[in-house]
């Protein structure tokens, strides 16, 4: 074959150097670049999801507010929202409604309430997933909020904040080749570029493994009880990926790379330049419950 190929051995070389197999080439050893450093907040609460998997909305709201105030270095969440939306904004909240692991309705409503508290009119806020291209509010949106749960995906490896924007294209299959490696390009679409003010990756009960399309099994989720908040979608996803890879190693009792390997996160940094995938260059501010944080 004339064209050079990226093989499993290339991944093994990278990950062997980091003593971690399966990180899909996201380097853990690279030196932080002060010019490109990203920040995320990882907040966890032991009781946000109980032993039967039931969500405590009040704790979730408190966690989210605390993460916002911390990330934006404000006294409270209200002030944090004032930093990212203005009264004249039209705001699209891009959620995810996958039937087995959707964004909690309660969190969507908290976001809407906080945005309205800033002064944005209710008619200028929409919460949508699969209908965003035909949603009139999204069509005139000046600001986007991106929120979804992290889960294993049979074609892209994982579905996180980067993948959540695939509904912004009228032709999603264009982004499917090579394990969806070019999902980062979505963030340069006219409807998206420069508009995203916040990325929230829900790690409440992430799904770390799947067998087949739209496969869901509670056996492959666990109560991590966390939320990752940031403005860099690549950094948020890179941290989330590291956590579920660590959980896979615990669960399967061996190095168990995501299947297929996650390539779009690294490519979002190196090819599309929309954020930071290098974990060594991402500052993680940790709040709340620390046990078994896996990162």
């Amino acid at each position, binding site marked *: 074959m004339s064209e050079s*190929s990226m093989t*499993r051995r290339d991944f093994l070389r990278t990950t*062997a150097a980091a003593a971690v197999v399966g990180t899909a080439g996201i380097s853990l050893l690279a030196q932080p670049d002060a010019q490109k450093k990203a920040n995320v907040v990882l907040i966890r609460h032991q009781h946000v999801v109980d032993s039967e998997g039931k969500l405590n909305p009040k704790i979730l709201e408190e966690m989210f507010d605390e993460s916002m105030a911390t990330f934006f270095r404000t006294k409270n969440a209200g002030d944090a929202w004032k930093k990212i939306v203005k009264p004249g904004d039209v705001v699209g909240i891009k959620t995810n409604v996958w039937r087995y692991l959707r964004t909690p309705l309660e969190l969507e409503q908290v976001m809407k309430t906080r945005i309205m508290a800033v002064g944005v009119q209710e008619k200028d806020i929409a919460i949508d997933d699969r209908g965003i291209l035909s949603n009139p509010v999204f069509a005139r949106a000046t600001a986007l909020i991106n929120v979804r749960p992290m889960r294993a995906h049979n074609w892209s490896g994982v579905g996180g904040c980067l993948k959540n924007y695939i509904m912004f294209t009228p032709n999603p*299959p264009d982004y499917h080749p090579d394990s969806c490696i070019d999902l980062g390009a979505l963030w340069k679409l006219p409807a998206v570029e420069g508009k995203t003010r916040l990325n929230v990756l829900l790690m409440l009960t992430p799904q770390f493994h799947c067998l087949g*399309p739209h496969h869901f099994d509670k056996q492959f989720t666990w109560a991590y009880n966390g939320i990752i908040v940031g403005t860099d979608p690549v950094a948020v996803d890179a941290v989330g990926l590291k956590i579920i890879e660590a959980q896979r190693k615990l669960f399967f009792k061996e190095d168990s790379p995501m299947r297929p390997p996650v390539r779009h996160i690294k490519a979002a940094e190196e090819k599309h330049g929309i954020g930071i995938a290098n974990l060594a260059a991402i500052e993680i501010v940790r709040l709340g419950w620390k046990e078994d944080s896996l990162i």
Partner: protein
Amino acid sequence: MADKAALNRSVQCGVNLHHKATAVCLQTQRLMFFSLENPIISTITFKEPMSSIFLLLTLAMTPSDTMTYSAMQKLVPASIRGWQASEPARFYSGREIFQYMDGAGEVYLAYGFSRLLVQRYARPQQEEILVEIFDMGLPRNAFGAFTNMQGRGPAVAIGQAAEYKSGLLSFWRGRFFVCVMIDNENEEATKAVFDLGSRIAESIGDDGPIPSLLHVLPQELFELQTLRYFFRHEILNIHFYVADKNIFRLNESTDAVLVRLKSDKSHLLLIQYPSSKEAAAAYADFTASYLPDARAEGWIQTENKKWTGCSVHQKYVLAVFDAVTLADAQNLLATLQRILP
């Protein structure tokens, strides 16, 4: 634009459509394909006489290896155990699958997906039951789609092979791969899922052949639930990432099986090509791309300290990945070469 009046006109013209939800509008030598569920799919202008178009159209819409929508509809009952079909069945053909699922649709397309029927069932104060029937065109495709998901849970006796776990029943029979699912299990709903699956399997009727490549693989060597059958490199990469390029030259004319061995958890890949020439070319591609530093025997200790090797035997390529010892891996390939046709 097509509209209901156009639909009525086409039906009144007596066009013999085998596609229950699709009609064709004939207006001044133009054909507009549309469905009751979707806007216009495509518009084509012809210069040929319309009589020819009728024939072409009928042939194009009823390929011999797929079932018509009305025939597919007959695979699902109107009710079961108090659950009633809660809305008309939805159908998706080819790349329309992306209207139903996003990236996951690529998996079915990689297995030759043809058509999908989606039927929902409701019963007051009970779980919704969702049925997906994938017409995969060929039995080998349906078998492959099943193996892509197998290992989820215990086997059950429905269709040619089935598994049930956590509310999801999946099985294959003939050229169909079927999923019947509920979000939250309870005794009554679970019984309904099993009854529905059994009814659909009976409606499908005939079994389909299992790919012959399976018969040459000694079953005692591997865990059955790890077996994956495929013919596209994208599916190989889901289960065991080898390379971004198709360095094994997999395509619709090849058959491939990936299993995980009981002995040392290494992966064995066995591929059958149409000819020994094509097998040799694939072997050359793989060794050049993946094992350029291997010794003449075709083995290398890779960066994870495990052994990977490959051999070619007539129209077969065999590869072992991540074997713990070189000797065991070499013995395995030698044994397989002796029993291959």
